[in-house]
């Protein structure tokens, strides 16, 4: 394809034209630059999250909010989301393996590892669905209401909620609480501060719930579309299209880049929502 040009006397650099300066096909470059621009989309969201969090007097503590496990287990902070992270890491590794098998032109290998990647993506989506439905259904956190709050001063509870808090329990500033619902009614507890004032639990910053569902939802949407693209490419792999192509399994490599990017974004979503 690249014939050398007889008029060139000097050693030819990659930038002389007629060749790929980064030794990468235009398709791969497009994927890289698309991911760069998608990174800016996520950066826009995550930085907005940061700005709103900085502007808020309190912010829910993640290891109090994300502490449920399937089967009615509570107070196991961050365990479930760590599992989700692992699912995504594993699916990233299987994707790496699929790309490596592609380099060996091993159709069966590619198909196997891609199938495992798709399964990983589906498990992640299922986990996210469970996490969302628990937060919405059991804890009543929605994009409008955030029942997770933190105390700004120390005091003593005047009521109990029948779950974790008994009448007379002491708490200190910074302690998290969750406002429960009785039937359709919110039941914020009353408490007495150390200075003797009687106050009621307040809802947490609304932005927390909305940002959480929005950003993890946007990430989940990426996972979902990744699963769809992976499935399409898996069908193509099985049909043998790529084996006959000039660039062989490059499509697998490109979708691999996308899939790793989804994992990469999760690193930061995990950081800002679950760790910090």
């Amino acid at each position, binding site marked *: *394809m690249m*014939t050398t*040009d007889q*008029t*060139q006397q000097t050693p030819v*650099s990659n*930038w*002389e*034209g*007629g060749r*790929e*300066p*980064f030794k990468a*096909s*235009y*398709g791969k*470059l*497009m994927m890289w*630059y*698309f991911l*760069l*621009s*998608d990174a*800016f*989309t*996520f*950066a*826009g*969201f995550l930085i*907005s999250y940061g*700005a*709103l969090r900085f*502007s*808020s007097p309190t912010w829910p503590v993640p290891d109090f909010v994300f502490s449920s496990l399937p089967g009615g287990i509570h107070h196991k902070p961050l365990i479930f989301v760590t599992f989700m992270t692992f699912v995504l890491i594993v699916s990233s590794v299987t994707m790496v393996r699929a790309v490596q098998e592609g380099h060996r032109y091993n159709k069966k290998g590619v198909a196997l590892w891609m199938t495992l990647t798709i399964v990983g993506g589906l498990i992640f989506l299922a986990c996210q669905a469970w996490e969302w439905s628990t937060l919405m259904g059991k804890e009543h956190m929605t*994009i*409008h209401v955030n029942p997770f709050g933190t105390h700004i001063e120390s005091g003593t509870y005047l009521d109990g909620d029948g779950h974790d808090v008994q009448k007379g329990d002491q708490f200190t500033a910074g302690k998290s609480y969750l406002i429960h619902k009785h039937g359709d009614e919110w039941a914020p507890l009353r408490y007495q501060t150390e200075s003797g004032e009687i106050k009621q639990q307040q809802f947490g*910053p*609304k*932005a927390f719930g*909305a*940002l959480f569902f*929005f950003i993890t939802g*946007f990430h989940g949407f990426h996972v979902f579309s990744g699963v769809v693209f992976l499935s399409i490419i898996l069908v193509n792999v099985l049909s043998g299209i790529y084996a006959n192509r000039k660039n062989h399994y490059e499509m697998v490599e490109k979708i691999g880049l996308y899939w790793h990017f989804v994992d990469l974004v999760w690193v930061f979503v995990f950081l800002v929502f679950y760790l910090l």
Partner: protein
Amino acid sequence: MSVVQQKNKETDPLIRDLGHDDHFHAHHHGDKYQTNFLTTYIFSQDHKMIARQYLITGIVWAIVGALMSLVFRIQLAYPDADVSWLKPFLGKWITLGTGGVGRLDPEFYYALVTMHGTILVFFVLTAGLSGTFSNLLIPMQIGARDMASPFLNMLSYWFFFLSSLVMMYSLFVSTGPFSGGWTAYPPLSALPQASSGSGAGLTLWLVSLVLFVVSILLGGLNYITTVLNLRTQGMTMWRLPLTVWAFLVTAIIALLSFPVLASGFFLLIFDRSLGTSFYLSDIFINGQALDRIGGSPILFQHLFWFLGHPEVYIIILPAMGIVSEVMSVHARKPIFGYRAMVYSMLSIGFLSFIVWAHHMFMSGVNPFLSNFFVIFTLIIAVPSAVKVFNWLTTLYGGNLRLNTQMLFCIGFVSMFISGGLTGIFLGNSTIDIQQHDTYFVVAHFHVVMGVAAFFGMFAGVYNWFPKLFGRFMNDSLGKIHFWLTIIGAYAVFGPMHYIGLGGVPRRYYRFDNFDAFRDFDDLNQFITIAAIVTFFAQLLFVVNFFWSIWKGRKLTEKNPYGSNSLEWTTPVKTIHGNWPDKLPVVQRWAYDYGKDGKEFIQQHKPMAEGEEDSSH
């Protein structure tokens, strides 16, 4: 006719002997992309056809947007005039008062201002300018058969078309198009009850712009990868015409800034449709506190202007590139300071990302933070001035051909200087306290990115019309168009600076309740008359454009201007794949004019014995 056909068949001997054979015909038995009317003219994957599509869509939008400006200019100059004659066009937005006196609905006035901004900024000066010329010139000037991905290129246009359709549709919904300003600041945009245009009109507006972002990203990815990977042999980066550099930098800016606008819009869509409070806090409607707290409207402004400021360079950089190229060709001189031009474009591109909050000095950004934005903003004057001086020195001592495209280039430089200088005023936060939201701002950005970018676009259209349609536009008509336009533009926007300094605020429906602004009534009327005249001068262009497509003087030679760049080595009647046989191999940079006693030396001509490469 036969001469043309003969010339068309003749292969350039330089390409025949020295060209690069990429086995074009072996890969393309016949033309699989252009088999029928639909694939040739509608769903075309040919970059030249897509360029034509962008250009004509842009022209349609420009006429719509300009007509809107005339309506609100009439309202500003003659608030008491009877405009019932507009009723056939605007329908219920003209209310008939006592005695059948027609008045422009105030709500619709704001809608017109908003739509004028949106249409001109996005649909005309982004898609119509960068979309047209990136598509036309990138493959032809770098010596490529087409874009890297012709299919995505086609999708890019059709997303733009879809976005256009949705925006056009929003003009006709019963509650009216969006009326909260093209910047769509919340809470006006976040609350559907804020104004009637904030309902369905804004929903469609947002959908349209999200589609537009998709179109820009698809286009931008294509432009970048094409410039990187598809340059023909010998076409190093330092041999690229400045147009291609400008399109490359534009595409990079677009790729990094539009996604952030999309994030801002997604959050806004959530606020509107799902009741979240990302941008809302402390809102009262009819004395009732709204249960929407904890967000910040300034957050949207930050996200918006993180696109918004780079956007003005997305608009002006292609114009700059076109002007540099056309000016050099018609001054018969190499562009002065080629590398300085490239570096200044790159630094403008970089700086455009760190200055966004200078649009927000008076809307609540922290005053301490403003200091940094002022400093960064004023630094932009440096690369801009480098470019201006390079254009002036290119003109100096040149053998100027004062044809229409050259006149528009000179007009561009004039406009860019005038508008750039007022930019230095506004970039200072202290002076901005006085000037913000006045007609001074309106005049500034219209001159520097509106009219200047239009001049670049006109220069490009007049210059490359033969490559687009195989015929020339009428030069005499073009010159009349130029002189009417530049005089008209200064007549419109010159006085606007003055009334802006007088404190007249923008986006007001009428001024007669304010004693302070009554003195400016005459000037407002003058501006309106000038605007109407200038608009009709543009019709000369439109007539010239469409007349010349079918009736213009025919292009009979490959290189009518004696230009160096590769698009003028393609056949007179353009073909799919651009070059019939081999691809030209580039031997020199694009600006060897007047070198060694030769008027011009085309890029694919080999270096003579002992000749120095001017690009080093």
